[in-house]
Every structure is written in C-alpha cells, then in structure tokens.
C-alpha cells in the first residue's frame, strides 16, 4: 500500500507543477508591454530603463514584448476585463498603444487622463502630437523611402506618388515592400496607396467610420493600384515578411528602393548595416504615414504611481534628446525643448506633416483585403 500512496503523491505533485500558476503583479515593478521592433527594445534596455531605475531607486521596469499590435490589444482587453471584475490587470504601462482601443475603453474609464495626472513635463508635449488626453506621445517616426544612391542618383529620386509609380514601372524588380500586417513600413506604403485613390485626404478615415461598405468603396481602387504595381516589384510581386527583411534586401543590393521607418533606417545607417550611400526621400505631394507612439496607462494598474513616474521621465530632456541621437526618432515634446544643436542636426527628419491612418477595424480590413486581393499572383478572373 505504501508504494501505491507514494505513487499517488508523486503523480499529484507532478500534476500540480503543470497547473497554470496564478500570476500577480509585483510591487514596485512596472510591467511595460510593447509591440515595437527590436530597435525600440534595445533603446529601452540600454537607455531608458537604466536611466529611470537609477533616478528612481526601488522601482524596476519589466519589459514584456507582446509580439504585434493584436498581441498588445489582447493584453489591453485583459486589463479592461480585469477592471470590470476588480482584478489586477497585470500590466502597468503600454509603450505604444492606441487609446481608442479596446472599443469602449475610454468610455469605461480604462485609460489614465494625462492632462489630469499632474505630470511635471506634460506641458512640453508637442500640441500637434496630442490626439487624445489618454495617450502620451513620447516619440515619433514616419515611413520614408530609402534607396541606393549608387544606382539611383539623389536628384532623380521620386518626390511624388506618380513619380514613384513611374520609377517602379521603369525599373522592374527594384522595389519591394513588406506584407502590411508584418511591419509598418509596408503597411504605411499600402496606406499611402489608399490615400492616393481617395483624394489624398487622410481625414476621410477615422477610428469610428469604418463600415464594410465604406471599406469596400475606399479600399477596392487601392487594391487595383497595388495590383498594377505588382509585376514591377521584386520577383514580379514578392513581399517580404517584415521591416527588417526589406532592409536586408536593400543591404544585399537586391533592390534599389524600399519603404522604411525613419528611426530604423537611421539606426541601420549609423550601425553600418547600410552604407553611407543610402539616400532617404519623403514624398512631397502627401507624405507616407507616420505617427507618434503614445504610451497609455490603465487606471487600475497595480503600480499606477510608478507608471506615472515613468511617463514623466519619458518627457525629460535626457530621454527626448536620446530619442533623436540614439533612436533616430523624433521627439514627443515641442522642438523648443530640444537643444539648438540637435534641432539643426536633425532638420532632415523633422516632419513637415505626418498623415496618420486609424487602426482597429480599418487595420483588419486593410490587412485581410491586401492578402486576399493583392498578395496572390493569380489572375482573379481565371
């Protein structure tokens, strides 16, 4: 019998280790969730986190990668569900998130209102960057076109959408963009095409105005435009699976031009991944989309106070200058709060205008619509 009891106990113990463990947020540990690329992770790990932790002894930052936008949305939905049941959301800080999501979150009071949070640096925030009091714009970047100046002289680089299309068609196989759901550089190239066929008017698209009919009406001509480009793209219509892979093809001199994130490309040039002969150009008729990354804090965060301290720290001159010099992004604060020297040095990437595109339902419609209508290299009528 003893042997039997031992086995039972053993089996029970083994089973217990496999049960899901109930997780609780740790005190004084700010759980920061992100869906940003590796360059942002590096920047936080090397600059922001050490700086914040030494300025605030006793507080630590736990950096968690939620994968992509949908992953981060799932974490936010968990926070919303936790709020309705008075549970711990297990997340304190969202590095870059659209406060309009999850739908109904703002109405339910999920996100912290930064205008009422008594942040000492909030008044420095660039007014143009503020969309909602629930999102704290702390860094920006925009998609531009990167090209190889040894193959395409600077003076011949396309400056408008029509020039770009003409250039792509005249140079088949020399342009590639990534699948729109796998990275914002290709995603915003697709959105630029959508803007093009809709009167170049970004205000036509808002978070709340998506309906399947309106989507059909606005997106279908864009698919036609992109399909027209497909035969002139790399391999007659191949699409890389991320921002990094596009840069890899440019660095291996396989293609001449790719859409890129400004911060990623500046870092790649800085680190020598791409040569100094890499040129950057923005379309002047309507720029490619870009956006500010807006941090959000759920009001029910277990470490709410500490999360606000982190938010305030992000707006300090120390971090904002580092965003320019180390990250290649543009600051979330007004340019008045950036040193003169930096302001002159980075005049090139200071955006004149930053068109944006709403997320949520639009994003789903664009991604799936692209996969179904543009990605397949097949004759749809066959």
């Amino acid at each position: 019998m003893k042997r039997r009891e031992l086995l039972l106990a053993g089996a029970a113990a083994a089973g217990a280790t496999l049960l899901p463990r109930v997780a609780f947020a740790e005190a004084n540990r700010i759980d920061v969730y992100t869906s940003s690329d590796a360059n942002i992770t590096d920047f936080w790990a090397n600059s922001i986190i050490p700086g914040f932790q030494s300025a605030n002894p006793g507080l630590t930052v736990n950096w968690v990668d939620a994968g992509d936008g949908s992953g981060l949305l799932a974490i936010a939905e968990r926070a919303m569900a936790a709020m309705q049941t008075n549970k711990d959301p297990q997340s304190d800080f969202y590095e870059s998130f659209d406060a309009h999501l999850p739908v109904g979150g703002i109405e339910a009071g999920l996100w912290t209102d930064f205008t009422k949070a008594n942040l000492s640096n909030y008044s420095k925030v660039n007014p143009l960057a503020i969309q909602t009091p629930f999102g704290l714009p702390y860094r920006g970047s925009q998609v531009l076109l990167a090209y190889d100046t040894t193959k395409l002289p600077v003076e011949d680089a396309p400056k408008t959408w029509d020039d770009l299309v003409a250039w792509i068609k005249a140079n088949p196989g020399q342009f590639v963009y990534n699948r729109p759901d796998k990275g914002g550089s290709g995603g915003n190239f697709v959105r630029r095409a959508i803007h093009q066929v809709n009167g170049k008017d970004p205000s036509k698209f808002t978070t709340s105005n998506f309906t399947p009919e309106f989507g059909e009406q606005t997106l279908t001509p864009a698919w036609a435009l992109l399909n027209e480009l497909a035969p002139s793209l790399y391999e007659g219509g191949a699409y890389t699976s991320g921002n990094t892979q596009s840069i890899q093809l440019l660095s291996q001199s396989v293609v001449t031009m790719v859409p890129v994130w400004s911060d990623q490309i500046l870092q790649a040039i800085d680190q020598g991944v791409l040569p100094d002969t890499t040129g950057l150009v923005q379309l002047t008729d309507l720029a490619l989309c870009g956006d500010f990354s807006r941090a959000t804090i759920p009001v029910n965060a277990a470490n709410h106070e500490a999360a606000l301290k982190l938010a305030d720290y992000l707006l300090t001159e120390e971090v904002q200058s580092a965003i320019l010099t180390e990250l290649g992004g543009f600051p979330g604060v007004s340019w008045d709060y950036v040193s003169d020297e930096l302001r002159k040095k980075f005049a090139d990437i200071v955006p004149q205008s930053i068109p944006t595109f709403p997320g949520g339902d639009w994003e789903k419609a664009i991604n799936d619509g692209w996969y179904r209508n543009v990605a397949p290299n097949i004759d749809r009528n066959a």
Partner: protein
Amino acid sequence: MGLLLVAAPVLLMVWLIMWPIISAIIGTFWLEGADGGRRFSLESYAFFFSDRYSLDNLYITLWTTVVTAALLLAICLPIAIYLRFAKGALPAYVQGLAIFPMFVPSIILAYAFIRTIGPNGTVDILLNAVGLPKIRSPYLTPWGPVIGLVWDHIPLTVLILLSGLGSVSTQSVDAARDVGAGRLEVFWYIILPRIGNSILVALSFAVLGIFSAFTLPYVLGPAAPEMMGPFMQRTFRDVGDPLAATTQAVIAFGFCILFGIFYVRSVAKNRGGAN
C-alpha cells in the same frame, strides 16, 4: 498498477489535447447565433471550401508536404543506409553532420538561409566569383519553405530510418551478395521489405511536422498562398476571426489524422508481430 502509472499522462493528454480538439470541433459546428443561442451549421466549412483563397492555401500546404516528404526520403534513405553499413571513423562525422540541424532553431535557420541562398547571398557571390550566373533564389517562393523544412527534418528522419535499418542483419546482406545480388537487388529485396515500417513512421512524423510548420513558411515563403500555419495564425490574430481559424485548424487536423492513423496502425502491427 500499470494503469495508475499511466493515469497522470493520460489525464493530462485528455485535458490539454483531447478536450481542446473536441471543443474546437464542436465549436465549428454549433455556431453561436446573434441571440446567444447555439445552432447546428456547416457554414464555416462551406465558406472555407468555397473560398478560392482558403483552398489555395490548403493546396500549397499539401503540395509543400508531399514535395518535402519525397525529398526527405530521397535524401535521408541513402544517408541512413550509408551510416548503417559503412565502417571506420568517417560515418561518425557524417552522423554528427546529419543530426546537427536538430540543434539549430528554425528562426536562425531562416535568416541564415536568406544570407546563403537568398538573393545576392553567399552562393551567388561564389558563383559570381567563378563567372557563373546567379541562381534564381527560392526566397519568397514556395520552394523556400521546402528547402528549409527538408533541412530541418533531416535529423529525425535519419534517426528513425537508422533504427529501422538495425533490423537488417549484415549476414542476410552478405548472403544475398554471395548468391550474386547487385547493390540495387540487395536494396530492393533485402533492405526495403524490412524497413517499410520505419519509412512509414518517418514519413508520418515528417508530414505532421511539415503540415503544422510555422516559422519557415512565414519567413521564407511567399505572401500568398500561405501555408496553413501562418494562415491560421493570421486569421486568429490579425483578422480576429477565431471561428474561421478553428475551422482551418480542424481541417488541417483532419489531414494530419490520416497520417496519424498510418502511424498508429504501423505501431500496432509491429506490436502484434512481436507477440
């Protein structure tokens, strides 16, 4: 006593594997209506099998599976036979090399692959150095995942075939040689009949792995058609349509279960033979 010993793993399997499968299958037939009630419906399957895009994804998955499995067998069988019958120090190194892919994570393999046989990669540079034209790179074509998956599955396939070849006695091969059988005849009449089972097991394992592959098709394959792995993930997360994703999973499961049955039957046959 024996039953008690296996109770924990069996319960675990029922809880973590069987139950999710059953609930997924039920969930795709009993759809939740707008009023919250559930009703029986095949519409989710009807959509899949009438949707050109979904079907293309299913075809490319089947195509990749068949081509990869055939290539695997063509590559691994000679390696395994060599390892079984060769003598000396060299086979140890060959075996080490054949097992090596097991220790390389597929995401690293994928990026290394882009650098090596991707466009303007190492192979192109070498070819260019001796004045030959560049290869037509398989990167972002259906052949990309095929090459990656073959490389990834070599170790397991070689090991299973090798264990099967253990049942081929050296004496029987020698005896056949003595009566004048050539290499091909030895393979066909002596070796093949004894390792048929191992080939079936190796193929079942490979097929199950390939069918559910994610990383390699995702990074190396074309944007469309997608293999079922990336397609399911995208449907679930990006499109936010769990029902369609589950339907795709059940369909993929249906194909995999065919190979599962082959495997179980071959194991059962072996057991029966041993008794």
